[in-house]
């Protein structure tokens, strides 16, 4: 953790705004949530304690999910019916994760964060070429819950039918993602999308939108825990939310000009550095 006296107090929120603005751009172009980059970078290179950084990370992910949710639903790019049971499992997990995270010693948490962030970098590397195995027929649970429908595929000008399979495994996966997201304040987009596409067989476009909707509910439950436990500092979360949201707007405009694959490589490199730094902090180095 950096010495706060390196800069006057007012310079830290300004620096935070500038860094999160850049994170917002990279996150949009790379197709991930801001929380997964925010927590390891800010915890590693700013003077704030990890407890407050995780609280801010959750609020950051929650804000992004809440602001994008209405547009995704109106565009038919998210399924509320699918999001609801998954969010229920995820939000229970997120509450458990938030309490676990706040009870763990800082060193153990930094070490665990480093391992999780490096694992996310590995996950992004191995899934970088996408690859969909779409569900053809719903399993028993998906049929009972009515988890199928249609969404507009604008790139082809068609309406695509979708359903899901392996629903019980999907529910377990979302509960585990909730625990990790709540514990480290990482949001959940980095894991929700692979769980929806690779495990449950949902088309990628619908998975991205449904993931956002699910996050808005999962992160709400963990954010309440952090608020009630006193682990929120406005000087940390407000500049970060503003920075990421403005950065995301700029990122959307740059999306067409910049190679998304290159952005993903940048994100993987940043995650490796931030995860490595967190591991070192965990070892007291």
């Amino acid at each position, binding site marked *: 953790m950096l010495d706060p006296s390196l800069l006057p107090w007012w310079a830290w929120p300004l620096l935070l705004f500038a860094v999160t603005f850049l994170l917002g751009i990279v996150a949009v172009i790379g197709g991930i949530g801001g929380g997964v980059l925010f927590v390891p970078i800010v915890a590693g290179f700013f003077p704030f304690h990890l407890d407050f950084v995780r609280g801010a990370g959750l609020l950051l992910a929650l804000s992004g999910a*809440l602001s994008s949710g*209405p547009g995704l639903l109106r565009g038919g790019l998210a399924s509320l019916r699918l999001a609801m049971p998954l969010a229920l499992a995820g939000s229970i997990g997120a509450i458990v994760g938030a309490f676990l995270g706040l009870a763990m010693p800082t060193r153990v948490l930094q070490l665990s964060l480093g391992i999780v962030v490096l694992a996310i970098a590995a996950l992004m590397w191995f899934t970088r070429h996408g690859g969909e195995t779409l569900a053809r027929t719903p399993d028993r649970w998906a049929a009972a819950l009515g988890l199928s429908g249609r969404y507009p595929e604008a790139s082809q000008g068609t309406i695509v039918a979708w359903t899901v399979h392996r629903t019980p495994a999907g529910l377990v996966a979302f509960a585990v993602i909730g625990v990790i997201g709540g514990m480290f304040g990482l949001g959940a987009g980095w894991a929700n999308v692979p769980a929806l596409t690779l495990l449950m067989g949902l088309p990628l476009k619908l998975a991205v939108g449904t993931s956002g909707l699910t996050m808005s*509910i999962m992160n*709400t439950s963990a954010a309440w825990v952090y608020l009630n436990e006193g682990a*929120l500092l406005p000087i940390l979360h407000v500049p970060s939310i503003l920075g990421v949201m403005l950065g995301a707007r700029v990122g959307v405009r740059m999306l067409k000009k910049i190679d998304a694959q290159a952005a993903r490589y940048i994100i993987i490199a940043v995650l490796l550095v931030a995860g490595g730094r967190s591991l070192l902090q965990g070892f007291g180095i």
Partner: protein
Amino acid sequence: MTMERHEKAYARWLAIGARIGFAALVASFFIYMFGIIPPGIAVTDLPHYWGLPVAQYLAQAHAPTGWSWVHRLPQSDVLNFVGVAILGATSIACYFRLIVDYIREKDWLYVWICLAQIVVLVVAASGLLH
């Protein structure tokens, strides 16, 4: 493709809640930063606390936990939690709106899912868990 009625209502409520929450979050932050309303913890004192684990911060700064921040209003640092609470309450309000539609349609499975989700969120918000 027509949007489901539930999704339309959910999107509308979500948009309203998010807008009000963000406005409150940002407005209260600038009130705090510019000292328009006196805070409980001065911004210039924050560097003494922001590097501490939350338990030590609470003990040293006498910062509020649970819903006790409400009693400290309108101190400008806790004023920010009003925005956080609105953002946190948005999904709960959306689920209350959804449950009405599902009851009308007698979609009992989703009525139960809605009820379970509301219970989970309300328990998290209540501060009863420690």
